[in-house]
């Protein structure tokens, strides 16, 4: 890699004793989670402890911030990881009192804490002292109450304002001194990939500042999951977070977390099917990213866009045969998958192989049409630069981080499923620009094809009497009270993590989703400063956000 990473002792494993010594007296207790040791600290020590953990122990990735309310206190949990080794984890638990829920902000340590803490304030109601921008993020500014706190009354009326979008050329909106202009993009705009609102400040054609305004698709996914029972009622929701047919990847995030929580072993055969299905989803998802990116960059609604959708149709047909649905699969079960490959088995395998055989020619076609296209290169090379250090600060993961040369892929670094036993590579590019992110996605399609090929070989030869698709799982799952776990998988857009706290019933006490798009999107402001406005659109397209997952 060309980029120099600051010398931190990151790759050295930090033992629990060393962590204890590092945090020292500042730890006022222990609150271990299933995935990591947890240290309870005072609300005044947050920055202090996080700085030490980052600089001296190498925990440079604030993966997730979970906020929740107990009967007697509020709690913020900082889930820390390392980019070099995501299996190294530590949780910092910060309790605050009910009558004064104020905690120190972690924003000076991790830039990504900005949006995390805004969300925690919005939904749970914890104030973060020293936060640079303490506004609501998902709900409208005028909202009353914090919906995930205990005393929230859902039937109370609410008022939502519709402020007129200012006309940017109207004289009184142009600041004559700085000569800047304010521009709204969205929330209903073809280039925003859904319902995103970007407030941009322009100087001529140059972008000075952007402020993504999210929350136009905040569907209360966390509340929905907290109301569902573990066994069957939660699984349909992950499909709808990242709805660009990454369903199985998302379902796996829930399956992995809940299986760890309830200690369920998944049969190997089911793991192979899961791996294959998940990679098919990744191909479908990257195809859409590619098609819409071409649409954004040079308005190509005819060739590339339609080709990408042609290939998506094929993948969706295969997935439909496998799962019974085109988009919202609901195919994973805790402890395995719903059913075996469709009969006739040979036909399904042959059909999938046909798709894989045709894929290299199609990828060549895309390369001819897109990546080797001069216009495309002029638009994308060296625009929307995201330096690796910045990407880490903002908690970027997935193809966005890998396009900036950050070598992280949970499939390899924190293995799950059957990935360990298969031959495939993690794709990284050092360009840090829009072009690299496209290249990463295109190559990942080929890597996914490799994985599917190997899975098909395994499935074909699997002895007929050992095809166990589901483990024995009790009808009602009631994990022990106050067990906490945070687990992540590599979704199509990056690290998709879930935190579950069980409260002894058959429904989760707290269900928190760590969405990769949310944090990738927060890096947009760094990527587009000083760029032209068309590059803002290109950068947004190359981030490949899905608003369902950003807003949840």
């Amino acid at each position: 890699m060309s980029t120099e990473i600051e010398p931190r002792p990151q790759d050295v494993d930090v033992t629990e004793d060393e962590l204890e010594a590092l945090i020292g007296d500042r730890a006022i207790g222990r609150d271990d989670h299933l995935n990591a040791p947890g240290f309870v600290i005072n609300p005044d020590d947050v920055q202090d402890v996080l700085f030490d953990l980052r600089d001296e122990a190498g925990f440079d990735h604030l993966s997730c911030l979970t906020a929740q309310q107990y009967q007697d206190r509020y709690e913020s949990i900082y889930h820390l990881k390392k980019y070099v080794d995501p299996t190294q984890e530590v949780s910092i638990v910060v309790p605050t009192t009910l009558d004064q829920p104020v905690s120190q902000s972690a924003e000076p340590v991790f830039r990504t804490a900005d949006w995390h803490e805004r969300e925690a304030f919005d939904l749970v109601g914890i104030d973060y002292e020293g936060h640079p921008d303490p506004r609501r993020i998902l709900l409208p500014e005028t909202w009353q109450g914090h919906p995930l706190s205990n005393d929230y009354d859902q039937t109370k009326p609410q008022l939502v304002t519709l402020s007129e979008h200012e006309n940017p050329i109207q004289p009184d909106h142009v600041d004559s001194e700085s000569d800047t202009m304010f521009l709204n993009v969205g929330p209903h705009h073809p280039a925003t990939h859904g319902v995103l609102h970007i407030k941009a400040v322009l100087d001529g054609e140059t972008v000075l500042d952007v402020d993504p305004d999210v929350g136009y698709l905040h569907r209360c996914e966390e509340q929905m999951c907290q109301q569902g029972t573990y066994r069957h009622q939660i699984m349909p929701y992950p499909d709808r977070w990242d709805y660009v047919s990454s369903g199985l990847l998302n379902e796996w995030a829930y399956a992995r977390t809940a299986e760890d929580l309830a200690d369920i072993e998944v049969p190997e055969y089911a793991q192979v099917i899961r791996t294959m299905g998940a990679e098919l989803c990744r191909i479908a998802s990257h195809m859409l990213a590619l098609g819409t990116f071409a649409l954004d960059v040079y308005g190509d609604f005819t060739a590339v866009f339609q080709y990408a959708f042609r290939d998506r149709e094929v993948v969706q047909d295969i997935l439909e045969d496998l799962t019974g649905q085109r988009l919202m699969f609901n195919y994973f079960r805790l402890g395995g998958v719903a059913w075996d490959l469709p009969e006739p088995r040979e036909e399904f395998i042959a059909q999938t192989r046909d798709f894989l055989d045709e894929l290299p020619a199609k990828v060549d076609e895309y390369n001819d049409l897109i990546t080797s296209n001069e216009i495309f290169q002029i638009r994308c090379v060296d625009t929307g630069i995201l330096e690796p250090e910045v990407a880490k600060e903002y908690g970027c993961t997935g193809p966005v981080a890998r396009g900036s040369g950050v070598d992280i892929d949970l499939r390899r670094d924190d293995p799950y499923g059957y990935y360990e036993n298969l031959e495939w590579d993690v794709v990284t590019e050092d360009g840090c620009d829009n072009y690299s992110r496209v290249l990463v996605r295109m190559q990942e399609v080929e890597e996914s094809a490799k994985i599917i090929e190997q899975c098909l070989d395994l499935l074909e030869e699997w002895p007929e009497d050992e095809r166990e698709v589901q483990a024995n799982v009790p009808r009602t799952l009631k994990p022990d009270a106050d067990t906490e776990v945070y687990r992540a998988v590599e979704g199509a857009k990056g690290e998709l993590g879930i935190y579950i706290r069980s409260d002894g019933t058959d429904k989760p006490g707290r269900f928190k989703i760590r969405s990769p798009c949310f944090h990738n999107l927060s890096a947009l402001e760094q990527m587009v400063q000083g760029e032209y406005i068309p590059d803002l659109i290109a950068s947004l397209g190359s981030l490949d956000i899905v608003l369902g997952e950003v807003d949840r």
Partner: protein
Amino acid sequence: MSNEPRQQIYDSTAPSTDTREARMGEGLDNRFNSKLREAFGASPFILTKFDQFMNWVRGNSMFMLQFGIACCSIEMIHTYAIKHDLDRFGAGVPRASPRQADVMIVPGTIVSKFGPRMKRVYDQMPEPKFVVGMGSCTISGGPFQEGYNVVKGAEEIIPVDIHVPGCPPRPEALVYGVAKLQERIKNGESSPVVVKPYELEQFGDLPKDELVQKLADDIDEEDLVMRYNWADSP
């Protein structure tokens, strides 16, 4: 270059006679069993009402609003794109601006923050306008109905002509829904515009209750607001 092939066609009147005979032949020809053909009969004149003619034209050339909200929009794109190709039915030109659109497909969950925006986009469309609600969320809130932030169906905010159920509906289902809408438009039907529970109102016009008092400092009297009465929602 020789003109011979062309000449041959000029020489022979066979092709045009065949066509004419096929058209004018005895009784009705099955190949031309369209409404138009029935109206034409053997004569080249048609008598109709201007309104009917306009409805017929309207139904066969619908401009859709390019409007993606949630999961259903992915299936909506598939409906527009290759394979399903909604354009075959005269209903597949997505317009990016509401000012140019006739039909709005509402593809997904509507949440409180988006409700006023959707109402505004609907208001910006020129009359006559039609709405296809796509997916369970636009019917009742679907799987998110119990959410604190989710509007319980598009009909709380705008009138809907056709509901397409499903989560998400398959592209075929959306094509069917649009075809049904075209049928209705051709017959001159449209759903009655009734007063909806959630309207855009000026803040100053709202009754002075506790919530309005609380927000009085933040919101201008003339600002447009939408007041959600969650308790009254189905």
